[in-house]
């Protein structure tokens, strides 16, 4: 199957006044369209840095990064932003909903930036909210919802623009086990429908949902476990 993400000798350094830290060192990974990949590793191993680069939020210092058909390692912020729009959906550990916007408005936001006409927006927002089983709370503000509900809104926002890739950063980290389970099932469902999912997690249980686990340690890929597809 076609690679949607491919990195070659990817390197990222963080430099402060006195210390230079190698965050990512010679990373080579390939992720195919429709795959569900988990990235694991201890704190500080470079997971978030990798996710930033994969998510087109940051550039590597050297190496190549192919996203779909583009070599994007040298893209400007503007170019990255253009490519990101509609192609990548993000799910965060702390949900990152905008407090001043209702659930509906939070989900609508990516479509506004894509300049989708309002009728179409309404249809699509309602569709994903219904799917996420959160339609009845659409006019509520994030603080009025439980953690599980907030994460469902966040997932709705991530998928409303129908991206080909979803990047999830510890999506169950702030949830109890029941809500966590529900979120993982939703991600699995989306993957089954063809969306590529790249997830950073500390939880072996969550990682089990993935087809493949990439283990990072000190900025390097140490192992890649290709698993049989199974459910707990």
């Amino acid at each position, binding site marked *: 199957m076609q690679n949607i993400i491919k990195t070659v000798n990817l390197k990222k350094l963080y430099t402060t006044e006195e210390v230079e830290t190698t965050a990512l060192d010679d990373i080579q990974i390939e992720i195919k369209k429709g795959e569900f990949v988990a990235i694991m590793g201890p704190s500080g191993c470079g997971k978030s840095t990798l996710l930033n680069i994969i998510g087109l*939020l940051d550039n590597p210092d050297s190496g190549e990064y192919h996203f779909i058909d583009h070599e994007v390692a040298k893209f400007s912020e503007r170019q990255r932003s253009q490519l990101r729009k*509609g192609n990548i959906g993000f799910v965060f550990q702390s949900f*990152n909903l905008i407090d*001043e916007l209702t659930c509906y408005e939070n989900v609508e*936001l990516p479509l506004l*930036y*894509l300049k989708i006409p309002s009728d179409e927006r309404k249809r699509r927002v309602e569709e994903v909210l219904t799917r996420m089983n959160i339609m009845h709370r659409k006019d509520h503000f994030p603080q009025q919802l439980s953690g599980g509900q907030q994460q469902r809104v966040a997932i709705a*926002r991530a998928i409303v623009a129908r991206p080909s890739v979803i990047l999830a950063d510890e999506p169950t980290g702030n949830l109890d086990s029941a809500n966590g389970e529900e979120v993982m099932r939703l991600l699995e469902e989306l993957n089954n429908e063809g969306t590529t999912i790249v997830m950073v997690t500390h939880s072996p249980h969550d990682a089990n949902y993935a087809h493949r686990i990439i283990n990072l340690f000190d900025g390097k890929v140490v192992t890649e476990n290709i698993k049989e597809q199974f459910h707990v």
Partner: protein
Amino acid sequence: MLKNYFKIAFRGFAKHKLTFFINLFGLALGLWVAMLIGLWVQDELSMNRDFKDIDQVYRVMGHQRYGDEIYTFASTPGVLAKELKEVQPEVELATTFTWMEKNLFVQEDTRVKLEGFYAEPDYLHILQYELLHGDREKILTEKSNIVLTKEAAIKLFGRTDVLGEELVMKDDTVRSFYVQAVLETLPSNSTWKFEYILPYQVTFDHPNNEWMRRWDSNGPNTLVRLRPNTNAEAFSEGIAGFVKERYENSNVTLIAYPQKELYLRGKFVDGKQQGGRIEYVRLFSIIGIFVLLIACINFMNLSTAKSQKRAKEVGVRKVVGAENSSLIFQFLSESLILTFIASLFALLLVIITMPVFNELTGKTLSIPYSEGGFWLYLLIIILFTGTVAGSYPAFYLSATKVVAVFKNNMKAGKNVVWARKGLVLAQFILATTLIVSTVVIYQQINYALQKDLGYVKEQLLTMPLEGQIGANFNAFKTRLEQHPEIKSVSRSTHNLLGRNSNTGGVSWEGKDPNFTALFEIMFVDYGFIETVGMKLVKGEDFNINKGADSLQGAIINEKAYQLITQGNPDATSFSLYDEERNITGVVADFHFQSVHENMEPVIFLLGPDYAGQGFIRLNTANIQNTLASIENIAAEINPDFPFQYSFMDDNYARMYSEDVRLRDLAKYFSILTILISCLGLLGLSAHIAEQKTKEIGIRKVLGASTLSILNVINKEFLIIVLISIAIGSGMAYWFMQDWLSGYAYSIEFEWWFIPLAAMVILSIAYMTVTLQSFRAARVNPVNSLKTE
């Protein structure tokens, strides 16, 4: 999308009420001041300019050299206008017009004192005041004509359709005039506030005014309208020697100066235009912009202080597809919405405070609701303020690095903290500058008001000697002096409140023929020196028992004495207009102008018949009763005229009304600036206290006292405030030295002005910050550390 921005904005306002209030209040104050100053500046800039063809209208003035200095006077020979029109082809219209004077007018039972002047027929063609009734072509052509303003007509007749009606003017004679035209209410942006105009020929032909027909005397003003496309500069140069060509000994060099510039740029120093009212216009424009900037700075400060809260939103928006430009647009529209709301409050404030502001500035301003220009100006101010206030937060926030969005720790960079401190610094520099300046202006005005003037201005009553009092002054004087609480009575041509009559025609033994000094001439009655309380250094006051000694003698001041005895220490006389005068007395120098001006040489001559200003020295604890007695005596002798008087100390203080205005405005601006700055400080310290929650928690766990915690937060601000005091004081020193140099007699910039202002600012700033830091310092560390 715009709807989305509006929603975010309004929900944000509702959520962060303190920030919203501080921003709104601060911006509203800033806009309020900017609007008031804007209206004032607009009014100043339009002063005396709203006349047809005003660009062609020129005032003919004269430079005169005395000693080392060139003085510039608007007074010209009374025959100049006519001659200019006849001789100079560029002159299309020309008029002489006199100074403003008050006269009593009688119409049947109505007696009214009106203020007005004499002018030639061209006057109302050059300055085309709007006519309510009458024919402009015929105005002032006959000696029996009078032009009234609408208000004067109503005062006299109770109506305005009064063409051809007779009214009587009473001065030293009684004359009838017939109303020939009625003018519309004079425009409010015109400084020349008259109620009537009489034909110049009336005063020109008066037997006392023979001097008006001569080229060696200057008195009335001359106004001309040049033909279209005339090169005014060439014209001005062309008429430079016009007076000298007609009177060989003249030291007058004529210039033609644009009439429309005279109000704002009418001050001449040594023959060159320099400063004038335009300086105040500039000063207040700068203050207006400063106050507005300070309000903008608050907004920037608070917005960036709240950036941590907004950073998450920015990160999320970027992740879901926002570009920098759309974020900048979002934040700018937010500040514009806020500025718009603030401007509504500001407008309301302007409406409420307009009467007070008018009193403060001596104007009659109003909001020109029907003028598009005003709304355009308002729109520009809103756009400017909103954009300036929103620009920094917009560019700063939109540049938030989105990579941190995963780590949930988006923070303001170090440079921003510095920028923020810089903004507070700028505010307090301004506040200090204004406060120190206010203190200096206060001191200087107090100094001017309390300065020993060389005569005793307290309990010195002065009154115009009109009608029968003028004619029977000695009877009046005798009656008054019988009153036990009236010490003495005399009269003079001079009111001691500014230049009146002066001459360069004084010479003495050993005088350099090329040197001319300007001497003020005061005609006085017997006992004048004693009545006003001047100090005689030599000789004696004019005395009726001395006969010819007094009549042919002169009393001079020390400045005059120094000049006359320069080459000859034993000199006892000088010559005035080629007539020898013995010096019979020398008085200590005294101020007959404001302390902006130097004390100048003065010659007193005995000339009671010219003296129209009475002076009465009181010595009483009961002013009211004494005044009543004077009024009774005046009414007996002079039943036609209302009793009018004033006290010299009040008159003297009135000379500083512009300075007092400046002082009051500076005072109010200082208060406002401090208020707005403290609003900013309040918001900012709330934020810093919030940011330092963890640090404070840890310090408390380690045993820090509340006081030492207070210092953690307060220290940061106090250092900034101290630095701004240092810089602000320096700026104030610089500005005030310049301002004080406009006074011939001024205070020194005292060192204690600075600690005084510093103490005021520091204590206000300290209280403001403590309000916040005290709360932070008292939080239980268990709570503050748990949230981390």
